[in-house]
């Protein structure tokens, strides 16, 4: 985290809303690109964007400068996505294998398979049991495997 970001966070923590807004401008492209891995409907994307940064504003006083601001936002983002109501992906043709998965399966699969989080960390982030994460992840892998087998046939 560079000095500019640290200063912006410190100013935002004292109540400087303009500083917080600059912070949003620094991070929202990266965060939104990450959201697109999980959400493909624009209205949901808007809702998650607004909820995330409003929550971040409310919780900013809890930020302790022991990690990057982006890393701090990560669990908040995943918790919001996890609690976003499940809807079908925008592309009904399901041209991507991950579109076969349910909302929770997709999120947990991406966190573990792509983002390399441990099962334990995912359980902590999503405030679910490790068994739930294991079971959902296995279910996701089984669906993806069945799809691959079907395609080959």
């Amino acid at each position, binding site marked *: 985290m560079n000095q500019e970001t640290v200063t912006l966070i410190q100013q935002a923590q004292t*109540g400087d809303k303009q500083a917080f807004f600059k912070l949003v401008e620094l991070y929202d492209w990266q965060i939104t*690109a990450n959201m697109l891995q999980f959400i493909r409907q624009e209205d949901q994307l808007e809702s998650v964007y607004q909820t995330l*940064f*409003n929550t971040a504003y409310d919780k900013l006083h809890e930020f302790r400068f*022991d990690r990057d601001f982006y890393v701090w936002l990560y669990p908040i983002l995943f918790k919001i996505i996890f609690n976003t109501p499940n809807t079908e992906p925008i592309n009904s043709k399901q041209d991507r294998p991950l579109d076969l998965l349910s909302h929770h399966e997709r999120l947990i699969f991406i966190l573990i398979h792509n983002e390399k989080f441990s099962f334990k960390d995912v359980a902590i982030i999503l405030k679910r049991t490790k068994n739930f994460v*294991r079971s959902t*992840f*296995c279910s996701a892998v*089984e669906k993806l495997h069945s799809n691959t087998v079907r395609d080959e046939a």
Partner: protein
Amino acid sequence: MKPDSTQTKRLKRNAILRLYNELSGKELTKFEKSLAINQDLQNYINEIQFSLHSVAFVADEIPSAHFLTQQRSVLLGSIKSKPKHKFIKSSVPKIVSFSKVSILSSRVRLYLLMILGILIVGTLIIKFTFPNTSMPSITSLAKKPTEYKIRASVDSGLLSPENIKFSRTQTGELSFEFSGAEISTYNEKVNNPLVVDLLCYILLNSTNPGRRLQSVKQLAEVPDNQTVKDALITTLLSDPNQGIRLKSIRLLGEFTIVDVVIKQACMKALLDDKNNTIRMEALSILSNEPDDTLLPILQVVSQMDENEFVRSEAARLLQEIVEET
């Protein structure tokens, strides 16, 4: 004998978990035994690996500039309408009248917090600027070369709290293990100054709540230590984990002398901490040495605390102090 479907399903799921090193030692041993005699299972693992490889994720979508501009505009509106500080909430009930003090409002709570904050910070600055003889410097404490090297590693940042592990030995000493430092182990009693400093270092700097809790538990065995007291106060006022804050305030309550810094920290916790039990503990410590300096805070708490029990206890203590004075 062909396994039933439930067993097959469980084996297949364990095969997936094994690919991600997610099986515990016992589960892994059992699975490996099944795998050795089950060719279908081996084939399934190969197929799964192939499937996972074929769904390798490609980030093919990027956010549009239009979307971001639109969302920033909406966000700006909602942020502007928020209160400036989290702890100034309009939902806090205002007190219209009070028998002794009539100016109480949420603003009073803020002023009290600010004054207490300034006093605590000032006291700590004076303490560290003009250290007294009971707090020897780190260099003078490092009599042994091992201790010097450990302290040097900590001071230079080579030894982060996450690189320090400790456990209790059978002889009652604490055994430290260091990774990434010149010294790999160190055994000493809990009341050794270096051990105390290491425990305080972990308590104040580790990102792992389990480690911090482990440290604060060990510090319970070091009574009336100045370094411990400072670390416990900082923890009480800043640790995000309520269990650790609770343990800290309970240890502060065990100090023989409740000095002005402990008192101020308890006052701040009583006004500001979200946890009912911590506020109750703070009130309990303050009630051991009641005096009229507590009056303004007790007046606020007895009226404004969200917890009925804390309010009633504060009112009771307030009554006692008023009657005595």
